[in-house]
């Protein structure tokens, strides 16, 4: 009961397969990052269930086998269910060691930087795919929903019986509809998510607990085989319906590598920041030198112009002083003549 009740708690990343959130689910970069919720249930039975295959076998028969042209899409769909299952298994494998106190801090740091990237990646991929198979998606989804409604309700009924939270009840009631009615509705992120699970806001962090993650994983994988399925024939392969066994070692490797990637991205950003600071400091010095040069040039020009004006003033003064000089010169000439007359008289 408790193990199945844990089925109600999934980490859902992106709107894959269901084209419901096509227009509206976009994580803004400044938005609160997702954080996988602490998995308090026992993770061992869950891991066993994941690795052993899935109980939703009636849906497995519906997946038509792909042709060679569709192998590519299946390859695309394969890695996507894998990371999602990886994310869900991560929450469970992390829940297994049963160390709650250092975990939220570690997970908050490691999953904080990693989860936004992963969540945005999942959402971008989810955004791409609904645009691709949007015309066939709703019809296929409705058919699938009608067939899977049984096990979906059984899942949620079990989760309700196991004492799921009121959010699970609300999610069960909300997920009773095959699809959220408005396809063109521009809902906010929280209201779009509230249909698919629980949203808890904790200041900057947002917790999201999705319901029926396995169904979504199947839905994300199904349409890629559904579209080209009727064409090449269903005999090409029947193994595309069920999720293959997940390797926990690979998941842990993915977790570690994702943490490393996040750390390296942090370092990269820090290095870029420091480099830019150094560049701007250098440029500030350069421009201050330029400013000093320009100021001294302006001062020199100012002095030069002052000197020019002073020269003009002195010249004007000199010009005024020159006025009595010609009269004086005339008098001196007269005196000279007088003197010569005297000299002539004396000789």
């Amino acid at each position, binding site marked *: 009961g408790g193990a199945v009740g844990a089925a109600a708690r999934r980490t859902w990343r992106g709107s894959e397969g269901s084209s419901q959130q096509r227009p509206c689910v976009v994580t803004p970069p400044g938005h609160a990052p997702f954080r996988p919720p602490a998995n308090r249930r026992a993770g061992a039975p869950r891991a066993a269930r994941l690795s052993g295959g899935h109980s939703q076998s009636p849906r497995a028969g519906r997946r038509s086998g792909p042709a060679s042209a569709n192998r590519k899409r299946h390859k695309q769909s394969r890695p996507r269910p894998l990371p999602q299952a990886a994310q869900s298994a991560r929450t469970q494998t992390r829940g297994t060691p049963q160390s709650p106190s250092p975990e939220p801090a570690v997970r908050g740091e490691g999953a904080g930087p990693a989860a936004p990237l992963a969540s945005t990646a999942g959402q971008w991929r989810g955004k791409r795919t609904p645009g691709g198979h949007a015309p066939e998606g709703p019809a296929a989804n409705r058919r699938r929903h009608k067939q899977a409604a049984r096990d979906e309700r059984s899942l949620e009924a079990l989760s309700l019986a196991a004492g799921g939270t009121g959010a699970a009840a609300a999610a069960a009631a909300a997920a009773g509809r095959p699809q959220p009615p408005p396809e063109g509705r521009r809902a906010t992120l929280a209201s779009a998510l509230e249909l698919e699970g629980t949203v808890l806001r904790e200041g900057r962090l947002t917790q999201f607990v999705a319901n029926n993650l396995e169904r979504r994983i199947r839905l994300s994988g199904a349409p890629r085989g559904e579209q080209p399925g009727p064409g090449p024939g269903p005999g090409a392969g029947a193994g595309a319906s069920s999720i293959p066994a997940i390797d926990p070692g690979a998941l842990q490797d993915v977790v570690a590598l994702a943490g490393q990637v996040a750390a390296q991205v942090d370092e990269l950003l820090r290095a870029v920041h420091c480099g830019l600071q150094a560049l701007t400091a250098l440029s500030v010095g350069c421009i201050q*030198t330029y400013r000093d040069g320009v100021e001294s040039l302006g001062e020199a020009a100012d002095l030069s112009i002052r000197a020019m004006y002073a020269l003009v003033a002195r010249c004007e003064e000199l010009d005024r002083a*020159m006025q009595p000089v010609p009269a004086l010169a005339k008098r001196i000439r007269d005196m000279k003549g007088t003197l010569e007359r005297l000299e002539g008289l004396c000789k």
Partner: protein
Amino acid sequence: PHDLTDKFTESMYVLANEPSVALYRLQEHVRRSLPELAQHKSDMQSWEEQSQGAIYTVEYACSAIKNMTDSSVYFKSIDSLLKHAIAMKDQLNAAQGRSTVAPQAKNPPASS
């Protein structure tokens, strides 16, 4: 298709590239125009020095002319004295002319 890493690398590229290019252009402009500014500044300083020299020259000339105009008094007195001297000389000449006529009649028997 453009996945997360593409978008991230593009954003990192833009983040690192735009300020670098901008700052490079800034320092390039500064580097190009600083020597010209320094040249203009030295030109201005030389012109200012020449102007100062010219100012001092004009100042000396102006003071010289002022002193020259101060000497007009002396020239006036010189002129009057000269005129007096000419007048005296005329009187002396006139007096000597009269005196040379009178002793001219007594002088030749005295001087033979």
